[in-house]
């Protein structure tokens, strides 16, 4: 299947940063115009029909999430747009905010109309200084043009959109960590339920959605939920941005129709493996997703297909490793991240990630013991289903899958004190 350009058409097009250009050339804000003629219920049902699934990682059906907002809580309702983009291997939301910010703003307007929110916060990671500046300029222009503010597009509808800058903490991408951070606290995730749609920011119902999820909303409203659903595959509608990185010739962001084969993405679109090497492994959905062997990766990009393959499509971050990659070292790189980012609230996660990292460090130093490999497997088993948020599992899955699928490399280093794979890491010319 060829690449599709539903939301990526204007990446690298500076003109698209202007609201008026977006209006004149992309039927910009016509989705919002149309939405204002629809009832919130009709919009939600259109989004349900579209089979739009959350693109932040969990893949929850967006229309269903919006439907969870209680009708008459008497409290204000908020939209929190998740622009934390900190799942390793993920870099797509940056493009939307940098190059097509008005599409995001239009998606926010439609979403807020549908869930009856009058304030939206965009939680952007602190490192994204330039994307923040571009997005803020677009928001400022939207206020000047009457697209946001007391009378959104001349309607009797008030909407304020604020960017909230994070300050370096992966855990603030987790939706309840994000809400805590928005409230001016440490980003410690909350126990669920209650879910944010019922009790979210400031004790009020809050819909948390990823940037890309929201950016798809205008076209769904313009062209219809069924049209969007038909672009994708069963239960997983439309297109999505895939981030391909690692040992490929053309690492980049690619918009595909759901159901496109993963091999096609890696070999045709991303140009195949560097130096004509063989592919060894792929992490298909951000570093929290289980690693796939090259054979297992011969499947389609859809939430269902990747689940069937034993992993997940997650955030769309495809990290490709070729034959010379030392899987022990790769796992150590991933694990040092989780050990650093565990917020420390739950013992299995805090202690488990630290223990795993120390064990991997020992193996790599050549001081390992053959029993270390099974100990790591046990440990990663104990880190699942025992904690407040999914970071604990996100840290355990790579360990489990790397060891199960590349066991001989772990056993070898534990026994011989050196890597089985000649490390041929080199800087590309």
């Amino acid at each position, binding site marked *: 299947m060829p690449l599709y350009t539903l939301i990526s058409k204007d990446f690298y097009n500076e003109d698209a940063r202007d609201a008026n250009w977006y209006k004149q050339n992309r039927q910009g804000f016509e989705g919002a115009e149309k939405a204002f003629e629809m009832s919130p219920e009709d919009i939600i049902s259109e989004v349900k029909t579209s089979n739009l699934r959350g693109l932040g990682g969990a893949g929850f059906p967006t229309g269903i999430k919006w439907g969870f907002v209680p009708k008459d809580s008497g409290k*204000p309702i908020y939209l929190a747009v998740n622009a934390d*983009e*900190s*799942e*390793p*291997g*993920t*870099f797509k*939301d*940056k493009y939307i905010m940098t190059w097509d910010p008005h599409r995001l703003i239009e998606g926010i307007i439609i979403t807020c109309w549908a869930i009856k929110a009058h304030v939206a916060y965009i939680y952007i*990671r*602190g*490192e*994204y*200084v*330039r994307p923040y500046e571009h997005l803020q300029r677009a928001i400022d222009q939207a206020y000047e043009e009457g697209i946001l503010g007391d009378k959104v597009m001349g309607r009797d509808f008030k909407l*304020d959109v*604020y960017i*909230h*800058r*994070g*300050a*370096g*903490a*992966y855990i603030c991408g987790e939706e309840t960590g994000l809400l805590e*951070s*928005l*409230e*001016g*606290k*440490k*980003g410690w995730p909350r126990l669920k339920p209650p879910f944010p749609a019922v009790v979210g920011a*400031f004790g009020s119902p809050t819909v948390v959605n990823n940037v890309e999820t929201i950016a798809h909303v205008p076209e769904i409203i313009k062209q219809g939920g069924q049209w969007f659903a038909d672009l994708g595959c069963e239960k997983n509608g439309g297109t999505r941005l895939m*981030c*391909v*990185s*690692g*040992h490929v010739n053309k*690492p*980049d*962001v690619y918009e595909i129709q759901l159901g496109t084969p993963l091999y096609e993405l890696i070999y045709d679109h991303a140009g195949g493996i560097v130096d004509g090497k063989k592919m060894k492994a792929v*992490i298909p959905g951000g*570093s929290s997703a289980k690693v796939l062997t090259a054979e297992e990766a011969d499947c389609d990009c859809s939430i269902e297909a990747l689940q069937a393959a034993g992993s997940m499509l997650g955030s769309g*971050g495809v*990290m490709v*490793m070729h034959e010379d*990659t030392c899987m022990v*070292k*790769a796992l150590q*790189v*991933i694990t*040092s*991240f989780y050990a*650093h*980012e565990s917020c420390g609230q739950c013992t299995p996660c805090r202690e488990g990630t630290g223990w795993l990292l120390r064990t991997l460090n020992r193996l790599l130093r050549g001081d390992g013991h053959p029993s270390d490999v099974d100990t790591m497997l046990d440990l990663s088993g104990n880190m699942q289903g025992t904690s407040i948020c999914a970071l604990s599992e996100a840290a355990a899955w790579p360990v489990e899958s790397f060891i199960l699928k590349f066991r001989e490399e772990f056993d070898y280093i534990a026994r011989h004190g050196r890597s089985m794979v000649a490390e041929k*890491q*080199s*800087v*590309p010319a």
Partner: protein
Amino acid sequence: MSEASETFEFTSQNLERCQDYLKRYPTKQAAMLPVLHVAQEQHGFISKEVETAVAEVLEVPEVEVHKVVTFYTLFHRHPVGRHQIRLCMNLACWLRGSDCIKAHLEEKLGVASGGTTSDGKITWEAVSDCMGACEDAPMMQLDKDYYDELTPEKVDQILEKETA
């Protein structure tokens, strides 16, 4: 390095920015991160005195500010160099040679990751977080900007141009 000063006061312009942030949220505490960002921009790092001033603006106990400052990695608690480098060591960058860039920076700057050059110009750190730019690996952030597809030679050019 920035002077460790005994006192801290928001400039009137920055105080106005803080007041503006406060209007965006239903609680005062929610303006914590934006106000801390303003404070760090002005002072270079978050000292005890800065925490006190931030607590005053937000009308929260100082301990609330302290808890937040110590949780988030982008807030500095000690003076730092005029320029800051964060080199990504996560998977995509490692697969494309970040180890070699790290060794180069260590040698070039004459100080280990986490340290500041002897002239106080540059503070640098090799970080475990992915910075959301894996398509450009290996990469680093220098102050506000990202720098792509690094090689030792490219790093030298960047340092010369941006931190001269």
